[in-house]
């Protein structure tokens, strides 16, 4: 057990951006909201899954919508209260702790605000271990836990509840609900038992994010130290030669091409991205695909670069980490593997491509 203060939020914002693998929305607005909630309500207690009581139940909270709307129309704390009350109305009032559903990007911060306002602990875990763009993409849904009833609230006092036949429908209906309610809204999805968290959650992701942030803020050799902290593999060192973006079926898809530096001189690396980095090829051979994590880091500072920030001339390191084993099931790969995003590659776990 430990307490998270405002300085931890600065670190968490950096770590969450790294686990966002290029997407997930800039944690900046979330960080400022979390810091103001800590000013107002005090530090937030963080506990591990093991520290939960055996009969504990844990709620997940997040935001859904366009990050470009969130940076302009910031929420209010009242809507966090309203959403929480609605959540209790449909799920009962036994909420012993809250947890992020998405460790990467801005959603890493949202449950911290709930924890501060409601005075409940935050669980050091999440349901992705990274960022993904759609509501059915978490390790609870792929293990058969349904993601409704789900409650939604905007900042104007409107709420909605959704009951659907499967996780994909939740995503589809929530998408149009979000547009009508103003482009960026709060949601509460799962109420999970300790056993479910133990079996399906990705453990220790909040503390890992904070450690990543601390390393990048203080280290003199950030990339080496990150590797010590996280394991993972450097797939490529190079400079960005070209970034091509195209619209395909309503989504922005892009390819960044890097030419190699140092040991990778003469080699070429391609990163296929949508909201997040999804596929990495070196000399046209797939080396890493979703759900394994592909992050582009600044060669000098080690700071993560978002897909929007990929620019010609940037010197960077392509850093890969294996996804949690909980993603590596048939249902997991069907939901978030390269095929779902429209890429014609099989998922080969990073451990194999690196060794072979």
């Amino acid at each position, binding site marked *: 057990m430990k307490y998270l203060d405002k300085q931890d939020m600065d670190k968490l914002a950096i770590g969450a951006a790294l686990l966002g693998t290029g997407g997930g929305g800039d944690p900046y607005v979330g960080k400022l*909201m979390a810091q103001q909630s800590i000013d107002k309500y005090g530090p937030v207690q963080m506990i591990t899954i093991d520290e939960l009581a055996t009969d504990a139940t844990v709620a997940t909270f997040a935001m859904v919508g366009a990050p470009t709307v969130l*940076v*302009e*129309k*910031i*929420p209010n704390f009242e809507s966090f209260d309203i959403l929480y009350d609605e959540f209790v109305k449909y799920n009962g009032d036994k909420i012993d702790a809250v947890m992020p559903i998405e460790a990467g990007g801005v959603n890493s911060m949202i449950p911290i605000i709930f924890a501060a306002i409601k005075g409940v602990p935050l669980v050091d875990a999440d349901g992705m271990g990274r960022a993904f763009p759609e509501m059915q993409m978490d390790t609870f849904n792929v293990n058969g836990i349904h993601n409704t009833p789900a409650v939604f609230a905007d900042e104007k006092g409107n709420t909605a509840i959704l009951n659907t036949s499967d996780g994909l429908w939740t995503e589809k209906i929530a998408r149009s609900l979000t547009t009508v309610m103003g482009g960026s809204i709060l949601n509460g999805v799962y109420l999970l038992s300790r056993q479910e968290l133990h079996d399906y959650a990705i453990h220790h992701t909040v503390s890992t994010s904070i450690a990543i942030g601390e390393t990048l803020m203080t280290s003199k050799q950030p990339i080496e130290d990150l590797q010590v902290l996280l394991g993972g593999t450097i797939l490529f060192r190079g400079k960005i*030669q070209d970034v091509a973006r195209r619209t395909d079926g309503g989504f922005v898809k892009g390819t960044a091409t890097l030419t190699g530096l140092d040991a990778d001189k003469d080699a070429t690396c391609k990163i296929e991205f949508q909201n997040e980095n999804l596929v990495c090829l070196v000399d046209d051979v797939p080396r890493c695909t979703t759900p394994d994590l592909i992050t582009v880091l600044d060669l000098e500072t080690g700071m993560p670069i978002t897909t929007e920030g990929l620019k*010609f001339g940037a010197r960077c390191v392509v850093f890969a980490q294996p996804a949690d084993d909980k993603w590596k099931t048939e249902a997991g790969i069907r939901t978030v593997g390269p095929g779902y995003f429209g890429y014609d590659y099989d998922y080969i776990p990073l451990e194999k491509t690196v060794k072979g």
Partner: protein
Amino acid sequence: MRYKLGIDVGGTNTDGVILDSDMNVLTAFKHPTTDDIETGIAGAVEALLKKSGLDKSLIDHGMLGTTQCTNAIVTRKSLNDVGVIRIGAPAGTAIEPIYSMPDDLKAIIGQHIYQVRGGHEFNGELIAELDEAHLEDIARELKGKVNSIAISSIFSPVNKAHETRAKEIIEAVVGEDVAFSLSSEIGSISLLERENATVLNAAIIDVAKRTTEGFEKALKQHGVDCEVYFCQNDGTLMSKEYTLKYPILTVACGPTNSLRGASFLSSHDNAIIADIGGTTTDIGVLNNGFPRESSLSVELGGVQTNFRMPDIYSLALGGGTIITLEGENFKIGPDSVGYRLPEKAKVFGGDTLTVTDIAVAKGVLSLGDAEKVNDLDTELVDRIYDEIINMIEVAIERMKTSDKEVPVVLVGGGSTLIEGDIEGASEVINPENSGVANAIGSAISDISGEVEKIYNIDPARRSEILDEIKQFAIDEAVNAGADKDRTEIISFEDIPLAYLPGNATRIKVKAAGPLKED
């Protein structure tokens, strides 16, 4: 022949020039910037007039590019007490206005903060009706307490109606002596950064007033009776009236003047400019004679903002940058001996190995006593010099948008450190007179007019409507003093707003032309 007098006050030096109407340099002046900038400007005017011996009545235009507004923000001195109003509640309250600003700044400008119901959604619909009664209460509270008010409304870049209405309501109570800064006129989407920029603009209104009046006074005192203009950071000039409304647009006009001056001296409109100083190398990009704007949010005095700024990459490498030797290896910077180069560098008898020493040892530069660097291993000197060039090449490459080769212009005191080819450059130009590039940049500037508005465009009349809007921008520039026959459109953006009914398009047009001769 008629003349222009241009002055650029930078952090380190104050430069001045007098140009004739054919843009020939008649007189140049350069002096370290004094703590008391106003006296420094007056001194520069006096020196220029004396040196040129020019008939003062022949000077038609005086231009000032100055760092005074930036300094006020960075040093927190002479700032206005600001009324900070955000419109958008019930949204937005989870982060208070200017929450992210440093505490010392908030203590000065954060004493009157209000959040009012109103604002718009991304699609232009209302979040809430504007709470006009609340605004009247706020106006009565602020009356007599502040002389500058910043108003930011959620999604005002899509619909600024609530900002302009709020101004009307408050102005009716507090009177016309109070300055208003509206966020829709200063920044783009991203409420917090735009609001910060708007509040900073409101905080430097008095500094802008003193600066503009000080320049006018300095000219008058020396018998020069001419129109005065002030440099903005996009490479064009603003009138005094405009400067008093939008002083934040003067921030970073120094690097912009340096880019434009370098462009003029090298006769290149499309180039990468590297301004090599004692501590840093500032690299910028000129597109058709104007600096490329930064697309990211920029930090100013510890504050995240998103108003228009030139895209400048600052590399920690200059003539005074310290080289540390570790056996066979070496480290370049980031520390610099800065202005103490003449006492610290080895070639001047000092004890610190600097980039200047390496350039002398390499034989690129002859300066000081070359004997003092004779003991350095030639192979090591070669490796260090190659790395220096490589650092500049990498920084230049960062600023390019493709691998196409472009001309590179080197200016600044450290430009003589570089010899030979630069990778990615089609040619390397080291122009004469580059020491006063900034003042030349200020004196050659055009005057601009800008129109930014959301229009509903009937597709059948599209080109006709666009021509009308372009004409508005040209008229604005001409009204501000541009020569009608030589004013043209320098930038045009049209962004369709996907979620608005009809064919709503946000159009931003800027026209610029040389100042009209009398």
